[in-house]
């Protein structure tokens, strides 16, 4: 239903540089449509990032975050082949999880 995220995780020493692109309208609830009616609020409220199942980021977002958000983070103690999983949940209750494997340092 929702589009897949794009997750890139590359190793720099023992730190994984993780870059996540999400597809989401992130409506603030303040915009009006062509008829002049408010477009309902619709945004990612919660983001969870895990490293081999262990939570490394647990974030509460608001409608202040832009459409099609980008999230970048660095995870210490990472190794090539480790799993990074990202889950977002929005205010309508929609949820999505995508996974990526940490690539070796190039």
């Amino acid at each position, binding site marked *: 239903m929702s589009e897949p995220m*794009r997750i*890139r995780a590359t190793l720099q020493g023992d730190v994984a540089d993780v870059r996540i*692109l999400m*597809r989401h*309208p992130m409506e603030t609830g303040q915009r009006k449509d062509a008829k002049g009616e408010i477009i309902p609020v619709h945004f990612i409220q919660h983001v969870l990032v895990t490293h081999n199942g262990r939570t490394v980021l647990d974030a509460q977002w608001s409608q202040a975050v832009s*459409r*099609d958000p*980008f999230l970048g983070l660095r995870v210490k103690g990472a190794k090539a082949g480790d799993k990074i999983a990202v889950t977002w949940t929005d205010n309508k209750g929609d949820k999505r999880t995508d996974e990526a494997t940490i690539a070796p340092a190039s």
Partner: protein
Amino acid sequence: MDTLRSGAAAFALACLLTALAAAQSPSGLEVGRKMLMEDNPGELWIDRGKKLFHEKRGPRKASLEQCDFGLGPGKLKGATTHLPRYFADTDKVEDLDSRIVTCMVTLQGFKLEDVKRTAIGRPLTDGSDVEAIAMYVASNSNGMKMDVRLDHPKEREMYKAGQYLFFRRSGQTDFGCVTCHGDPDKRIRLQDLVHMLDKKEIQAVAGSWPAYRGAHGIARTMQWRLYDCFWQMRLPELGYLSDVSIALSTYLNYQGNGGVVKVPGFKR
């Protein structure tokens, strides 16, 4: 007195060096734009476009895998660096959009008018299939240099016509492309304008299309960009895939030869 004077001189030198250093370091705007450019949402269109490219679609239930972008059917790596170019099968010079549309019609059986009508997506939607496929196809040239050739007489005709059109002023604004893109260091409000008569500047943008247009939240191709310019100039609507659009793209892309392809670009 001497120590005071040399102290003052040293101070003046320090100030000058600091000013110079500040001039060299990127402005806040530049840093911000660079951050937006890297990891921009346009990458999600590459994924979407790839899926659409390989999917069996249309009345003929065929994929686009046999589409020839100039290097042979299905050969995508580097293909868009040579666009626009002449294609014998249509006897026309075609850009990326035209070629995708040609293949959607001839390989997949879609109706030409239907594809053209929906090819430029509405802002704040998922955008069109053509825009996604264009992003995917172009991404196969990432890291390579623009290399438009003008070997065929029709390519040369397009190039010269595009050059003429670039400088052509008309309408109640008396604008031509050159009005905004013919001088260095120009801006409309806060939007920097590419000086297209400068080799380095046009090389820097030639490989930046298709791009994610922040304000619209979707992928955009050069066809849309040209349309939008004519809109702002208070001129009539530029036809999708029209000769004028191909001529201008041929001229500009050739001028941008040597520029490195880096899609998705990011525009405000």
